[in-house]
């Protein structure tokens, strides 16, 4: 499988503190890759670098084989990279409808986007005029995820989709993610809630202190290693 999104030897820093020490990672079309690891390992930074929000100090970012290192987030978004950031990836003071309007940048019209979003998440249709900040957490994540559906991205980057949500809601959201991946989208998921994402992931990478320690099949071996990591026994 050829990689759609590829990071090669990426180093990144927050001020004077280096967070990523040469990370190489690739995601192919239709593949779901789970990025796991303890707090502060640099998982979110990887996603931010991939979306162009955080500059890489060295290393390269490739999209469909093309070098896009240093491109602006807006341009990457138009090229098909969709990052749903941690927390709620919605504009809280805009109405649901205006939030959907913001997704028209990739060529779909407002009506098409509303059609896609409301079909997939009918609950949003009833709240079209409501300010997004007043939606419940799960509804806000649905609205954020609607961007991943409606803008036809090539690459979907998801950061902590489960944060603050009930397990039932998380399960439903990840079903949608798997569905999106089946349509040929490369999905890179960061998740603390490992059980939820390992169920749908094709591959998993474990990030520890800014380095990828292990990559491979999300099988039992990886799970054992993960629990050791999280529970603090020797790695």
């Amino acid at each position, binding site marked *: 499988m050829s990689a759609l999104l590829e990071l090669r030897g990426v180093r990144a820093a927050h001020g004077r503190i280096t967070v990523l020490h040469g990370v190489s990672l690739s995601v192919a079309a239709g593949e779901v890759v789970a990025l796991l690891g303890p707090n502060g390992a640099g998982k979110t930074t990887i996603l931010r670098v991939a*979306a162009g929000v955080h500059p890489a100090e060295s290393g390269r970012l490739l999209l469909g084989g093309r070098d896009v290192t240093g491109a602006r987030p807006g341009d990457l978004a138009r090229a098909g990279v969709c990052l749903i950031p941690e927390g709620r990836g919605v504009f809280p003071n805009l109405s649901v409808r205006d939030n959907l309007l913001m997704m028209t940048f990739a060529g779909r019209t407002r009506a098409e986007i509303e059609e896609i979003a409301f079909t997939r998440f009918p609950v949003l249709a009833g709240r079209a005029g409501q300010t997004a900040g007043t939606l419940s957490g799960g509804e806000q994540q649905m609205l954020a995820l609607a961007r991943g559906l409606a803008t036809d991205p090539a690459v979907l980057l998801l950061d902590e989709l489960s944060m603050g949500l009930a397990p039932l809601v998380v399960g439903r959201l990840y079903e949608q993610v798997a569905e999106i991946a089946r349509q040929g989208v490369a999905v890179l998921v960061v998740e603390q809630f490992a059980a939820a994402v390992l169920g749908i992931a094709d591959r998993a990478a474990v990030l520890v202190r800014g380095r990828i320690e292990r990559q491979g099949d999300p099988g039992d071996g990886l799970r054992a290693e993960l629990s050791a990591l999280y529970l603090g026994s020797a790695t």
Partner: protein
Amino acid sequence: MEQFLAFGIVGLSTAAIYAVIGSGLVLTYVTTGVFNFAHGAAGMLAAFAYWQLSAGWGWPVPVALAVVLLVLAPAFGLFVERVLLRPVQHLGEVERMVMMVALLSGLIAAARWIWNPNEARPLPVFFADRAPLRAGPVTITWHQALTMAVAVVAAVGLWALLNRTRTGAEMRATVDDRALAGLTGADPVRANRVAWILGTQLAAAGGILIAPAVALDARQLSLLIVSAYTAAIFGRLRSLPLTFLGAVVVGCLESYLTGYLPQNAYLPGLRLAAPALLLFAALLLFPHRRLRGRDRRLAPVPAPSARGALVFAASVAALGAVLATVLQGKDLITLGPLLPLGIVALSYVPLAGYAGQISLCQLSMAGIGAVVWAHLGAGGQPWALVVAVLVSALVGALVALPALRLSGVYLALGTAAFTVVLDRWIFTLPSFDVLGVRISMFDQGSLEVSGPSLLGLRLDGERELMVLSAVCLALVSLGVAVLRRGRFGRRLIALRDSEAAYATLGGNLLAARVAVFALAAGIAGFGGALYGMQLRTITAEQFSLVAGLPIFLIAVIGGLGYVGNGLFSGTAFVGPNILLGLASWTQNVVAVLPALAGMGLGHSPDGLVPRLRREWEPVARDRVVLPAVLCVLALAWLLRIADAVNGWLLLAGALAGALALRGWAAARRGAAAEPEIPVEWWGVRRPWRAEDGEVLARGIARG
């Protein structure tokens, strides 16, 4: 009835102008998150530019209008966005507000520089030669009709832009979450540019429309906008229709007050102050939602060491003694306010620095202190000084009570409104009686102020007052340092960092806020009384909002969390005044300086005082250089006293000597300093230091 309708028409046409300006204000706030204090000043500048083109250079009206509205206003909006706001974009809401206050102050000074304020510049109304329209008993001039039409077009256009187009959604989305807007293919910079261009154009249109009705005066035009602010607050800075309603309320209120307010000595000021009173009321009555996604940047407030505070206080007192012996004649009078205004600026440190309460009324508090002292302390009784401080503190506490509901930009706006009420109404009142106590203000003119008698000495000369002010500034600085090190100081900082956490830990918000407002007002009143003594004659004008803005700006530039800020602000604000009189243009340069300094805030957001401290600390810690510096200064001082050199030579010589020695100290220290060690190796290649933990925590928090 006919008169009632006539005043109604006048009120509505004024309201239309307020609506245009107010909607521009709402537009910039909704789409950039910046409360544009300089919005009115931009309108003022446009009115002057229009006058210059049409009346000054005789260009045809349509050409002049097109140039101002389509070329100059957009260019100015782009300039503000690019040069002023981009550098502070990553800082907090307060820093952006300070930028706008600097712009307001700077534009007023610049306009008074370019267009001599003592010259009358009448602007004709539009369509002056056409007969007014008549509809039954109502008469509407073409100018009024045009104004209302502009307001309606602006309103409909703006509403459609914001609510019906993707550009509008992008603009609002950018305020909500700049990073996320970038992720959805929007260009935040472009959205901001559009907002600033449109906002400035609206301000310009409003300025040009209102200018024929009032005198073309920089200060008056910039502050007319208080009415537009009121309209915008009615719209809670979000809703355009409510902003319109607010504009109608304010416009008609002003018009009917003109028509129906009874004639007596106490009320004319009320009409002028009505918009500000209404603004204050609107701020208190309407709930304000904070814009989301605006994180606050909390500046550090280091605790001064006991030894450091004592050394600083002693240096301030010594500086006063040196100034009093060195200065002569005119310079002594020019630099007299340096130390008293330093005390006024120092009042910002506990209030804005520690407690995080942005207040624009500190110079008014100083004015109250000065008035009380002028009336009660004519004989020099020291107790009158105590009363002056207490009365100022009381007024400060009174401001704090209603202001309890406000924070950030809203608090700044509320205190500014309070200042405008004082300027336009209270300070202009003749004396009156309340419960048998006679209350006098500036006696509708000026007041004579005399110096105090202390320990049998009558301190009335400039030199004695200079030393007295220095001792007072030293003591107040020491007091603020003690406050910072004590329990109350820690509480204030806790209050600033998180009101919710402070309250849940059992702190009393009301008591703390009232106390710090009263304390700061007391300090300011004390400084004001000393300022009055130096000036000898005081007028209300010297304590107005416009006079107080530069002091606020300089204090912010100095760094609000630092005790040394009093001396710094006094020096930086009053020091350049020695240039006055060297040439005719120096006065204008000096007037523009604080605003220019304020605009440089982005370059050192934590203030200049800590930077100066960093630069001079090697000198103070060096056992060889420090005595050398002191010797050089003492030598220079002796030479001046012996009249061997003049004041300029002394200043230049002392500065050059001190700078050279500072370089020496830095070199001595640099030789001993270790090379830079990467952060990962701290504690390994070199020992772990006590401050390392905080350096790391701050680095991570910023990332």
